[in-house]
């Protein structure tokens, strides 16, 4: 937990934060509305006597009373998909509509890409990209199990992504769920911090900036881009968005979020960020008994 010490000044009730990070996380699933309504998924879990609690902030999120959420009839039928509660947030913030063209720049293993497909009623185009071919095979497995037919899968570096395989040249929306230092997954992976170093944080921030810039460029004027990470490090969150605001035509816009959260930071480590970054959301594990997450919503202005 050593790397977390530097967050003491920005986190209210820091001891509760540390205590939550020590607790392991339960199994959450998302109901895959391509194949089932929440009612049908819950009826299936009832039949097989798997206990659950429906999240109060979204009827499609269920907290299961089992350690193997992948070994249920509900999962076999593709009614549910194991997905951390906070990981459900970015696609909801992106809020795509049926028929739209949506880019998921870093999509593997596909939890959010399949959620995007569900949100557009599996009608439209979700381009799910990842530069890691091995992880893409997991994505394809998940997409087919969940019955997502609106997904096109590509294998490229998102930083210089080409829309050449398609006959349109911009997206309506883009999700940028970047690789990160994963501090917020500590409750699922207790060794998440083993490899942590400030050097790693800084180098991955460069990749994140490149991917977010490309996403803004590839999205139409008036379109939406959502940037998310599962880490607390401001260098990978507000600092990345701040840098892209300065270089690309876009602005941070507010959004509603039913889960308890903190505003994004506007200063950190002797740097100041654009004041609009206060519209971003930081979710800490002790606030809703979840993992940690950062989400910012951008509108493309030119």
């Amino acid at each position, binding site marked *: 937990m050593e790397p977390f010490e530097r967050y003491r000044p920005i986190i209210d009730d820091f001891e509760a934060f540390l205590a939550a990070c020590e607790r392991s996380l339960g199994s959450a699933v998302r109901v895959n509305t*391509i*194949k089932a309504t929440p009612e*049908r998924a819950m*009826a*299936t879990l*009832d*039949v*097989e006597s798997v206990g659950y609690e429906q999240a109060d902030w979204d009827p499609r999120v269920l907290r299961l009373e089992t350690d193997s959420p*992948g*070994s*249920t*009839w509900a*999962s*076999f*039928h*593709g009614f549910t998909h194991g997905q951390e509660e906070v990981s459900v947030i970015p696609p909801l913030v992106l809020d795509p509509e049926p028929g739209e*063209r949506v880019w998921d720049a870093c999509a593997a293993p596909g939890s959010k890409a399949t959620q995007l497909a569900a949100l557009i009623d*599996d*009608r*439209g*185009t*979700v381009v799910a990209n990842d530069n890691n071919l091995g992880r*893409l*095979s997991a994505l*394809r*497995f998940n*997409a*087919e*199990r969940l*019955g*997502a*037919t*609106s*997904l*096109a*899968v*590509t*294998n490229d570096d998102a930083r210089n992504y080409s829309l050449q*395989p*398609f*006959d*349109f040249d911009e997206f309506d929306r883009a999700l940028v769920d970047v690789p990160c230092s994963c501090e917020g997954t500590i409750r699922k992976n207790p060794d998440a911090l083993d490899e942590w170093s400030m050097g790693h944080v800084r180098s991955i921030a460069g990749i994140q900036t490149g991917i977010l810039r490309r996403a803004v460029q590839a999205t139409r004027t008036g379109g939406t881009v959502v940037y998310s990470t599962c880490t607390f490090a401001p260098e990978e969150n507000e600092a990345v968005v701040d840098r892209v605001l300065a270089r690309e035509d876009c602005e941070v816009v507010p959004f509603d979020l039913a889960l308890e959260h903190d505003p994004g930071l506007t200063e950190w480590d002797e740097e100041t960020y654009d004041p609009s970054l206060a519209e971003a959301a930081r979710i800490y594990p002790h606030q809703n008994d979840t993992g940690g997450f950062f989400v910012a919503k951008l509108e493309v202005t030119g």
Partner: protein
Amino acid sequence: MADDERVTGADAADTADTEDAENAADTDAIDGELATNEGERFDRLPATSAERTVAGRVSRKEVLEYYDERFGIPPETFADYTFWEKGAGKIWVYAGEAPSPTAVESLGMLCLRTRQEHWKPTTDFVQRFGQHATECVIDLDPDAAARFVAGEDQELDWDGDWGYLIAAHEMAGEREPLGIGLYVYDELRSLIPKGRRRDL
């Protein structure tokens, strides 16, 4: 993996993955004038076989007829979908936009294998669209359903056609498709891909 539905028994030879490489180079004598299929890109199926430009490629019409005739799935079910071929005889169903041909990793889901004597739908397709089927659906009791999903072959009565069937069971008051099976010699073989099998 997703498009690698490994199967057991007599059917294995039909669907072994190496087959794709071999077929890709294969040109049907009758179709000698037509181009050969390219395995590394997706080509949209022609509307009818009259519009076909690649040897051995099935048409959209034939795919819709197959699903209709074998399983009673109404052709209208697919009104908003396109069908694509990647690799010889691997057919994909897609709801999005793409030009043809296009070089991507996948478009929608693998739904059917043609270019073999008996066409074979995938389990993922059956789970996604099988609720529209009215024929060649074998209803399994809870015990048989669990065995099917675990990948077991079992002796079962069935007085319809032999060949590929949609196995289904009742779940919370509704018929729910489980996956694809092969019925021959009074036995239902489970063709649930290894990665999808579960002990439930």
